[in-house]
């Protein structure tokens, strides 16, 4: 984590030991600063391009809520279901996250009204509203995000298909985000609650983009810390070790008087594969929750079990309680248990280097590529064949027989039955080998230590393959 509160050396930023650590970031090779592209810098520095996009996503979000609440209850004909869960979700999983990390966060509409109220203006800062309390220390980390994601998972079958429920879930997220902005400082909702932000953050560590300080010496001499004061998330760029928290909003770029920030293109997975100094069990847990959720979602939505699907839909019934207990057991007990066992077994063979907790937190990094690729493969399984619905709901967003594009009832569905399984196998295998590689680097190429982790990854991959391809 890179929040200011956790950087005790900030007051004497040039303290030797930490300055050394900061400088290491500079010496990392394989980076290309995108801001060297002459036309890109003004586009990012100027607030208007981002503002216009944000205003449009905000309008789209409000339209989605309205469509969900008053449009047709038939999910496949409602903008709220198709556009969000097919179009946006696919874009998020197939493009925003794998290539842009938290780039969606930079245009996400949900925190905007809260932001604007908090700072008392859209483009300028005025007399803001709100109490600006510190976020409670014991609620820090991604535990709440994991919880929020599990909560959505329990009701996913209905949330993903019933426009009214999707509408109300969005109203709740919107209200929560605005409410938290008025009580707590900065982006409390994004940093600690948003279930999308949670997994976007952990997977952003694999993405080929990062925002970093170029020369930490310059920052050390800069007393004002205008980047920190300008950051809506309350982050201090000098402290970035990974890209999990930075929402790529570019406010630090606008605030820095020295142009000391770089938007780097970097190799995939650049943040992972190094032992961590902080033990972040919350991130490890979120990583495992993402694995458990993708297994559960694939079983419910793609798997061959009709009873499971109907149990997931029958919210409140005894069958659903069974599904919910199974879902929670998988995420809270089975996967964390198996993974801890794998880490423990690895340690047992090769001797302890760190306490088990820290080792679990470290080794969980290896599960990030696996989970990312599994989510992409899962998304491919339902998104590609349904893409035709997106055109249909733009043509008739509320399912009321409108014909905005003049497209009539054309339902163009690409036939991906032959191509989709091949793609899924390739994606899952990339995830498996990538994860194996990260695990190996984490274990300093001590193969015996990685074997249990590799078995865990292989079992997960086989499970996904079985569910997706059969």
């Amino acid at each position: 984590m890179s929040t200011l509160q956790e950087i005790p050396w900030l007051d004497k930023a040039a303290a030797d030991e930490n300055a050394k650590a900061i400088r290491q970031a500079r010496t990392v090779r394989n980076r290309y600063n995108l801001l060297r592209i002459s036309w890109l810098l003004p586009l990012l520095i100027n607030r208007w391009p981002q503002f216009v996009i944000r205003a449009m996503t905000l309008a789209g979000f409000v339209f989605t809520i309205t469509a969900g609440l008053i449009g047709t209850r038939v999910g496949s004909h409602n903008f709220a279901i198709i556009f969000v869960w097919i179009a946006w979700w696919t874009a998020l999983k197939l493009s925003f996250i794998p290539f842009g990390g938290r780039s969606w966060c930079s245009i996400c509409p949900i925190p905007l009204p809260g932001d604007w109220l908090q700072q008392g203006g859209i483009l300028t800062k005025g007399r803001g509203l709100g109490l600006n309390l510190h976020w409670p220390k014991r609620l820090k980390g991604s535990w709440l995000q994991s919880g929020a994601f599990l909560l959505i998972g329990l009701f996913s079958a209905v949330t993903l298909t019933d426009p009214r429920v999707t509408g109300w879930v969005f109203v709740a997220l919107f209200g929560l985000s605005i409410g938290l902005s008025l009580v707590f400082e900065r982006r409390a909702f994004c940093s600690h609650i948003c279930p999308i932000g949670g997994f976007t953050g952990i997977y952003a560590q694999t993405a080929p983009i990062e925002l970093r300080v170029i020369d930490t010496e310059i920052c050390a001499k800069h007393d004002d810390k205008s980047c920190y004061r300008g950051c809506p998330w309350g982050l201090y760029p000098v402290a970035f070790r990974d890209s999990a928290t930075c929402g790529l909003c570019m406010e630090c770029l606008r605030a820095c008087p020295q142009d000391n920030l770089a938007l780097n293109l970097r190799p995939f997975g650049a943040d992972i594969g190094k032992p961590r100094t902080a033990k972040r069990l919350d991130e490890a847990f979120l990583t495992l929750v993402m694995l458990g959720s993708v297994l559960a979602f694939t079983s419910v939505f793609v798997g061959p079990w009709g009873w499971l699907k109907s149990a997931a839909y029958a919210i409140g019934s005894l069958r659903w309680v069974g599904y919910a207990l199974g879902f929670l057991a998988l995420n809270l007990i089975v996967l964390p248990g198996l993974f801890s066992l794998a880490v423990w077994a690895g340690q047992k063979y090769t001797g302890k280097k760190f306490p088990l907790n820290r080792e679990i937190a470290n080794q969980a990094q290896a599960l990030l590529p696996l989970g990312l690729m599994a989510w992409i493969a899962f998304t491919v399984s339902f998104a590609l064949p349904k893409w035709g619905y997106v055109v249909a709901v733009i043509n008739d967003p509320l399912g009321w027989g409108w014909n905005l594009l003049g497209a009539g009832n054309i339902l163009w569905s690409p036939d991906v039955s032959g191509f989709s399984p091949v793609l899924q196998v390739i994606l899952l295998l990339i995830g498996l080998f990538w994860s194996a590689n990260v695990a190996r680097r984490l274990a300093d190429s001590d193969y015996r230590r990685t074997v249990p982790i590799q078995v865990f990854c292989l079992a997960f991959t086989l499970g996904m393959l079985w569910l997706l391809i059969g």
Partner: protein
Amino acid sequence: MRKEWFARIFVILLLAAAISIPVAGWWKRSQGIVIHARMAETGGWTPENLTVQVGQPLHLRLTSDDVTHSFAIGQSDQPPVDVIPGEMTDVTLVFDRPGKYTFYCTRWCSVNHWRMRGTIEVTGPTTTTEAVAPPLYVTLGLDIDAKHQAEFVPAETPSALRGALLHQVIPPAYQSREYYLIHTPVELWKALGGEPALQKLYDQDVWDLVAWVWQANTTSQELQLGKQLYAANCAACHGEQSGGNGVFADQLAQPKSKNPTGMQAGDMPVKPANFTDPNTMLSASPAHLQGKIIRGGMGTSMPYWGPIFTEKQTWALIAYLWTFQIEMEKLP
């Protein structure tokens, strides 16, 4: 600060559009009347009687509470729309003439499917109603409920093609539309047989001449239309091959056969009419068939189709019914 205000107005305008577009559509829709469709046994259309003024659009929102139904307006060109469970189907109707219109289901939703009917009363600025000419069976005083049997039937199906190839001259009196409408095939057969010029012909040859005359009173387009109407509206009971054995025929017959005491003197058989039976068909005139179709009844479950079919459609259907007795193909 000017930029800030511009940004705020921009956001407000976009949000207003995002909310007002769906809400305006919703408001417009809410002006419509919601009509629930159920199988006739459980209520049919609710509401089933509507009133509207001439020229005023009537917004209907149709939904089904059980199976897929279909909504159509009798005697109009409005194409039928499906009424699907759990969905709202919007229909906007504008009537340009006053009168009482019937809306009905065109899906075979249950054995009492045809009872799914409702009315739309269209009132005009003037209260004068158009005088409608009574149908032929009324002006002729035909008793369409009476049993009728053909005195003579052909040995084989009369053929218009064979009739044409006999190269006989048929007196013009028998060739008029008026004659066709009010005479039975048997009557024409007897009349032609009595003509001196035709007396040398065999009985079957005369039947073929009857077929030729009958065929001259229709067109292939009319037969095509009749065929479509038959398949959509009649085949459920009368059978696709018209043998009186449609998918609902047995269910129609059941109640009375189970309860024979319910039968009353003069009751007609409750089985749907069999159009392949020459005894009943050849002893009926087009006017007679028209009466049966538009009035229905006859002690059977035959619905009344008067408010549903236009006159053109009724005659087309009758022309098609003759094809079960007469081979209508033309000279090559």
